[in-house]
């Protein structure tokens, strides 16, 4: 039974950690645009390169 004294606090700590993470992400606006977030992962990162080197990069694929 003594393992309960260890396991219950661990379970609670992990749960609180998850809750804290959720509240933090809520506050930082990560839940403001669910639809956009779902689509953003499909953007090719190399398309959003800073100005300068992007032009050269694109001549190939268009």
């Amino acid at each position, binding site marked *: 039974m003594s393992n309960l004294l260890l396991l219950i606090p661990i379970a609670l700590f992990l749960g609180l950690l998850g809750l804290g993470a959720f509240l933090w992400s809520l506050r930082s606006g990560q839940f*403001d645009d669910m639809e956009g977030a779902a689509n953003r992962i499909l953007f090719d990162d190399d398309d959003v390169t800073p*100005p300068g080197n992007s032009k050269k990069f694109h001549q190939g694929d268009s």
Partner: protein
Amino acid sequence: MNVALQPCRHCGEPVTAMSPAAPDFCCAGCAGAFELLGEMGLTSYYNRRAFDPKVRALRPDEDEIASFDFTELASTDTDGHHHLNLMVDGIHCAACVWLIETLLQRNSAVLQARVNMTTRRLRLSWQGDISDIEDIIRPVMQMGYRLIPFDPAALEQATTSRNKELLRCLAVAGFAAGNVMLLSVSVWAGYFQGMGGATRDLFHWISALIALPAAAYAGLPFYRSALGAIRNRRVNMDVPISLGVILALGMSLAQTIRGEPHAYFDSAITLLFFLLIGRYLDGRARGQARSAAEHLLSLNARSITVIEPDGTRRLIAPQKATPGMIVLAAAGERIGIDGKVIDGQSDVDTSIITGESIPVLTRPGTTVFAGTTNISAPLRIEVTATGGNTLLSEIVRLMENAEQGRAKYVAIADRVAKAYAPVVHTLSLATFIGWWLIGGIGWQDALMNAIAVLIITCPCALALAVPVVQVIATGRLLRAGILVKSATALERLTKITGIIFDKTGTLTTGKPELVGQPQQDKLMLAAGMAANSNHPLSRALVRAAGNVPPQTNVTEQAGLGLMMQGPAGPIRLGSRAFCDVAENADVPSDITGPELWLSEPGIAPTRFVFRDTMRSDAPEVIDTLRTRGFEMTLLSGDRESTVRQLAETLGITNWMARMSPTEKANHIQARADRGNHDLMVGDGINDAPALAAAHASMSPATAAEISQNAADIVFQGDRLGAVIEAIDVARKADRLVRQNFALSFAYNVITIPLAVSGFVTPLFAAIAMSSSSLIVIANALRLHAKSGKSDGVGIKPATTLSQQAGI
């Protein structure tokens, strides 16, 4: 000649042989946009985008860029960085988001550009000069997107923060419910496996430690609402909920202190968790509908152009105008203020205020009102009234008077609660007295049984019965382009017995169309001249003729007509007087309506007659509604002959013409006093008080801002079928809500006797509550299932094209 060749390579609209940039593009703007993207190396956009048929085609406007003062709403922080929030119109899919962000980020002054795809809003931060903003956003405008600045503080802040609070509460309740349930399951298992009393008490104490603070926080939305209701001497669903949760927790704490085997921490916190899910989804669905409605409205918002005494022009918001200012209204522009014309002669489309479908001739001295559209020539207008003196604020006052009745409407959930709460509380009291006095057990045990009754009857499923159905119904209508703004709109819609329509812009499209078959060569000549004018009748001629090359050397005399020098003398197109046709000239009098005459030297003049055409599905919709037994009325501010004509075509026997805004509202009020429940469908400023007075109201998305605000439901698109669709969904939702109430009552019928007789254990309570909630939710989900039975008139759900096109 006007056969579509292929879709435009930029906007996807059909390209006709007449297009200046044929065969690849429909217009010069699209060609320019394509070229710009090519230069920037962003043509991969075309491969990955997917068109959304509901969104405006991405065709660049020619003269829109100058319509806003973008610096006015921009803010600057201490670092010298500027921020601006903009609504974006024209987002079809994720590729559009990508394109807008990339275009903006190519500009080195831009610090951050982030498009919120859900709300279609752009947050832009840049450094340097604040007035650089126009250069920064120009490429986006050139692509065909419209950007409209807005003030985030003024827009739905309350809804957003309320929903965020619900989500925070939901998270806390979810965390607590999970952990308490973990401990409770152990305790339940312990009943059968012989868990020691000390371990059980420890688990109860830990549960209390988690559940009490969590319920104190997560239950706040319910406690607040319950307190508010009690203060107003009303009962809503939140009163029994709050009472149930608090008593369950209090009793469980007492049991834990006494070392008793039963505690209900898990029931209380799971109840909150379930209810918060319902509340949150409900709030979010309505938030979406509302933000879509706001989006539509801000698309119509325009700045006004003020001419300073020194001749310079300045863009300001209409509400900042002061009397005496001189405002310029360009041809084709909406007039933003009430005032008197001091210079210029033009036709003004006043249909939004009067319902009159023919434009009114205005010349210096004529009074014009905000909301009307200037058609043919620029006008200079002196502002005469602002703030509380405008026609609009007069209408607002009428609306506020009319709204009183609707505020009294009590939602079905609250009506049920009003009947339910006293019954449950009496039952619980009876249980206590019965066990204590008659049953002869100690008052503590009697109290336990009484509280168990309250817990088991706590309206968990009952409180979910309405919101879950509402969420699904609102979402389904939203996808069909019907925005439900008011929480009780669907409920009120099920009660209606009569439907009252406005004419111009509601039953009709508000656009005149040519009637009859004039001689082809005359039509081509007239249309060629008309192509030079913005007058609705001219546009109708051009539409009727198809693609006609515009005639050159045409001069427009506002309010009169068009003139062109022909080989044999002047050719005129315009009013009867302008074309020198005698007032009593012979005309086939069976067709009435606005008319244009074409006179050529030496040839008998030709007459073109127009009619404000019905929405394409209006006869079908009216027929369907009639067969369903609704009483139909047509109220219009337009002249009698036009109203009669339309009413007879549609077979509406009840019609009234030349109605003022007050008369419309009074008519509805009088009907309501006789016990009628009416649905008002209207779009004009003159309809706003009537919309507010009616039991339920709808307006098309093309309606005046004030009417959209007054209406419970706003529908997009050209089809009147939205009315049927909304009524159908509302009725179906109502049926499901009633079924859900019946299901939860059935549950209570089984469980209350058990609770009264003291057989309820925490395990039993947990199972009963969760399963009844799940059944109610499952029942509500049936609304999602096909609506194939509807008469085929309703709007078909638009295809959703959210997927990325194959790259």
